[in-house]
């Protein structure tokens, strides 16, 4: 048992050493893909919202292939689920409200 306990720090150190390069690669991608929108991108965001609204009004959203529609629905759901992640962070509890 004592030898097992002595091995724990070694295990943690090897895990950190093995994981660091992978984490660095992850961070390089995340800096670009998960970055919060910059102020310079506001016109693009506005254009995107306008496009969404106009396609909702004109009914253009019905003219897509099933594949496109599935992908769009999945992306929309993913974006929506960030709200629930944020709610869990805000209430500081995973299931329900801890009052």
């Amino acid at each position, binding site marked *: 048992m004592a030898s097992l306990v002595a091995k724990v720090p070694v295990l943690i150190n090897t895990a950190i050493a093995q994981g660091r390069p992978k984490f660095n*690669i992850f961070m*390089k*991608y995340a800096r*670009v*893909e*998960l*970055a*919060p*929108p910059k102020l310079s*991108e506001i016109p*693009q*965001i506005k254009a*995107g*919202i306008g496009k*969404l609204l106009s396609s909702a009004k004109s009914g253009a959203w019905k003219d897509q292939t099933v594949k496109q529609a599935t992908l769009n629905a999945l*992306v929309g759901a*993913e*974006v*929506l689920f*960030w*709200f*629930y*992640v*944020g*709610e*869990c*962070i*805000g*209430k*500081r*509890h995973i299931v329900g*409200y*801890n*009052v």
Partner: protein
Amino acid sequence: MSDLPYGPPVRVSPLIRFGRWSFLTAGILYGAFHQNRLSKKEAKFREVEAKEKVIRDEKIAKEKAMAAAAELKNLEDMVSGKN
């Protein structure tokens, strides 16, 4: 960027990134607000319940004492009645 094994990073549409971040912050605010509101509500409820508990405990203790006295009296009657 030559050390990236999975090719260049995808340019995620600014609208999607804006949506994610704004929903995340909206969710954090919503969760914090409702946590605050619900814990205040619960605290009020607990206060009322603590007050009611004192009254209820008193009532139960009184009923218990009365029941014990009645039982004792019954028992005495039974014992004295048989002999």
